[in-house]
């Protein structure tokens, strides 16, 4: 078995941080929006928005890192169509990780609630209060999120397939510890 090619440590840290935030933010978003109005609901909405803004910031850093650091090459045994599919899927994941928080931020503004990161850093309202636009963006935000869910399932399934079914040490590429 050849040596494992790992992503750089910053890339690995950013990947898992963002993954953790998405795995927290997504179910939170699904859960909170059906709740009757209460202080808890207001808190959960704020936490969800803070998570989203944090993702946006981390993804900006991630994108900068990714554009200046080559990811480790895929093993030679991976078919050309899979390489193309992987490139497209990763590209889409990046797009969604940027567009989803943006759509949430805009939705919040359109619904008349400014986003204030951790209750401290106010984000500018890029659109004014507009109920119709707010409802439209809510639908967009939801649709984008379910697209993300599908892509994440595909992403995880592909990694697990390469690792367990094809029996390559694929997960080590993005794992903590080990040799670079």
């Amino acid at each position, binding site marked *: 078995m050849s040596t494992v090619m790992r992503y750089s440590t910053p890339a690995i840290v950013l990947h898992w941080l963002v993954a953790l935030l998405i795995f927290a933010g997504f179910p939170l978003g699904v859960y909170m929006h059906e709740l009757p109005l209460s202080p808890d609901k207001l808190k959960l909405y*704020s936490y969800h928005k803070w998570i989203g803004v944090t993702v946006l910031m981390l993804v900006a850093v991630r994108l900068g890192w990714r554009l200046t650091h080559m990811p480790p090459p895929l093993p030679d045994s991976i078919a050309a169509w899979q390489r193309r599919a992987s490139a497209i899927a990763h590209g889409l994941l990046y797009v969604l990780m940027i567009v989803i928080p943006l759509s949430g931020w805009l939705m919040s503004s359109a619904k008349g*609630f400014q986003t204030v990161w951790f209750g*401290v850093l106010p984000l500018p309202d890029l659109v004014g209060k507009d109920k119709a636009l707010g409802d439209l963006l809510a639908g967009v935000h939801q649709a984008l999120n379910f697209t993300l869910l599908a892509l994440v399932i595909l992403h995880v399934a592909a990694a697990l397939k390469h690792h367990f079914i094809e029996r390559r040490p694929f997960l080590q590429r993005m794992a903590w510890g080990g040799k670079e």
Partner: protein
Amino acid sequence: MRMTGLILLAALAAPAANAVEFHTVLPKQSTIHFEFRQMGVPIKGGFKRFTTQMAFDPARPEAARAQIEIDLASIDAGSSEADEESAGKLWFDRSVYPKATFVSSQVRALGNNRYEMRGTLTLKGRSRDMVVPVTFVPGNNAAVFDGAFVLRRLDFGIGEGMWADVATVANEVQVRFRIAATGN
């Protein structure tokens, strides 16, 4: 003797002839807005329907009086969800207390068209004395009275029970009003 009396009368009447008592309120140019913080986020709102009775003569500010009655059903609390919520028992309990009233008791001139109005605000059956700074802005057709004060919602039991947590919805509510009135 009679002549002197007439001159005296004219002299007394002269300032009164220039003075205008503002007492006809222009509802369309009058507003009541408020702002509070929810999870650190500023939320703007207001009341669309309220009636104001007032009398103000800049020459005799101590005789000024004002009475405002607000229809709480005309609230804009930032979202339709919040508008509905505000009607409930924990908030305004609107079916029992549909109105808020302010009745002035004393007006004091501070100079430079600034005044201090004292009065009683009654909300949800609770009355509290308030001190409200008001700025008088004379105009050609109508004068404008701008006022602002901070109301602590818990003084009036606005947002009880689970909503009493001021870390979620702040206790302080910044209230700003503008009353336009003419002397006609």
